[in-house]
């Protein structure tokens, strides 16, 4: 009896192991290829580059585990960044603007969650609509003009570090840890997994699944808003199309990280590793000078390799 328990366990660990191997392999390969790869400065680069994607990957992982998804994340990111920038330019103190921006993210979450929780439209469907709508809003709020001209201090903040570790990365790492603990050890976590596995059963246990999903969308909006603050600090400027295609990177890290698109399965630690895989890949290929064209092909192949089930299975 205990034998197949181990077997089951290992299948859960398998994707994590695979990713650690992938990361090690990349590290070795790139450091052989380029002497600059393992320099502290470069590691810091990688950390800073994946920070915002990571912040979005957290709520995205949670939503996907709970059986939904937010396709409008890139638009939300852009909109929040623009809103934040305009508030700062409008004379609102940075901290107040940051809080308001997170509220804007929450409001977008309320909007997105409404369709899922009240109208029972699957997230992947309704958020395609809001993706278009929110991107449209990006153009409307500043009549298409980029937002920039922020204070020196704010721009410095984008590159600030603590003991050499970029602040944005620290924040992301802390959030990841918090999410991991919450998912493993709290009420919240069980509900996320339970809903993703079997929404009906969960509802039959007296849990208000719709309301909970709504909450997840609000959380999602808030974390994206947070990411937008760091992104804006790093860029110092927001165009109306800011964040476009970020969703693909976020999805790729989450999915490579072994979180099942079908919901209910996967581990936030996996998403973090997936993020590292992609971050290191991008950086390493850039450093050894591989054309981005081949980079996207390599990324595609990597996605396939990690997701494929090569063994032929019958019973």
């Amino acid at each position, binding site marked *: 009896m205990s034998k197949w328990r181990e077997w089951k366990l290992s299948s859960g660990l398998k994707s994590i192991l695979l990713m650690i191997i992938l990361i090690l392999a990349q590290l070795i390969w790139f450091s052989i290829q*380029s002497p600059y790869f393992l*320099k502290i400065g470069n590691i810091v680069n990688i950390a800073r580059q994946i920070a915002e994607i990571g912040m979005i990957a957290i709520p995205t992982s949670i939503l996907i585990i709970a059986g939904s998804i937010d396709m409008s994340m890139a638009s939300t990111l852009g909109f929040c960044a623009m809103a934040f920038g305009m508030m700062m330019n409008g004379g609102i103190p940075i901290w107040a603007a940051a809080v308001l921006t997170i509220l804007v993210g929450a409001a977008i979450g309320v909007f997105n969650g409404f369709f899922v929780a009240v109208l029972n439209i699957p997230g992947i469907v309704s958020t395609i609509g809001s993706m278009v709508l929110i991107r449209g809003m990006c153009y409307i709020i500043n009549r298409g003009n980029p937002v920039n001209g922020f204070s020196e201090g704010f721009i410095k903040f984008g*590159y600030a570090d603590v003991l050499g570790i970029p602040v944005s990365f620290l924040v992301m790492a802390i959030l990841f840890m918090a999410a991991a603990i919450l998912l493993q050890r709290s009420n919240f976590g069980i509900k996320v997994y339970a809903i993703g596995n079997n929404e009906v059963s969960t509802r039959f246990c007296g849990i208000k699944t719709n309301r909970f999903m709504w909450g997840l969308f609000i959380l999602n909006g808030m974390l994206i808003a947070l990411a937008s603050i760091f992104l804006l600090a790093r860029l110092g400027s927001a165009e109306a199309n800011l964040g*476009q295609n970020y969703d693909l990177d976020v999805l790729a890290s989450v999915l490579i990280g072994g979180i099942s698109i079908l919901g209910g399965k996967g581990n936030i630690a996996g998403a973090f590793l997936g993020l590292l895989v992609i971050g290191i890949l991008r950086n390493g290929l850039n*450093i050894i000078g591989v054309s*981005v*064209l081949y*980079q996207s092909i390599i990324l595609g192949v990597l996605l396939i390799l990690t997701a494929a089930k090569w063994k032929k299975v019958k019973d």
Partner: protein
Amino acid sequence: ACGSKEAAQPAAPEAGKEQSPAADSQGSENGEKPLYFVNPKSIGYAYWDLAQKGAEAAGTDVGAEVVFNGTTDVNSAKQIDMIEDMMTRGATGLVVAPNDAKAVASVFSRARAQGINVITFDSDAPDTERQYYVGADTDQKLAEQLIDIIAEDIGGKGKIAFMVAGLGAENQIAKMDAAKAKLEADYPDIELVATVSSNDEMQVSLTNAQNLLKTYPDLKGIVGFAGGEAPSAAEAVEQAVNAGELEAGQVKITGIGWPNMCRDYIKNGTINKVLAWQSETLGYAGVYLLDCLDKGIKIEGEMKMPNGKTITIDGPNAFTGLIVISKDNVDDYDF
């Protein structure tokens, strides 16, 4: 103009204790070629391919290693990531076509702090520490010239529309604003009725042009502010003319346009004139200027580059000049 000898010195004072990788590579591997990183807005376009050719040719001519790479999508965050990565790799000079003029400011100042020379090309980032901008001409000159062309085409009055690649893109906005100012100042009888954007998709810009023709039956002219717009407009006009919905010559078209894409339309008269420049020359000039900075060659006046082309220096700007493409000269160019 800080293109002096000290820029080439490895240890700029601000770099302080942080040993820059650039300094590293130069110091230790003496006699090694300098490494120039040329970063377009994105790759996979003919325009940037030509820039790559130019940049690499210049690399050979000046004896530098040139790496040309960019993102697949127009995305300023990824562009900055890539510049940072190349700085790590020890690039001694950067030639960048910024997607967002403001967003590159911080990475540029860090590059300068490490003693890396920075030049923008194709699109400028004026409020940054970049040392030179290599372009065909200023956005303002370009836009004004386009307005002059369309005004001449339509006889100084009537309705016109703008077609742009991205409504929110900085370089498009700069051109549009200059064009609007020019209209207001010099052509009060020309009315700008609409602006449509295509996100650089030909099918979308074709659709946009078709819809414009329907919406404004009395439209006189269309100005395209990115390479794909004028040919799409021409295609739409030709199709409408063929279908008998429009009279030939009723709608005039101009804009930025590459000879290869516009050749047929220019030859059959759908388009009179477009403005163009050779991105190959831009790429070449960018690398060439970097090398001048590196070697401490004085940058001023009219400079003849090793490939025989000249650039005009005007303050921090280096202009290769705009080419007016028309029936007479379209066959002289192949790009």
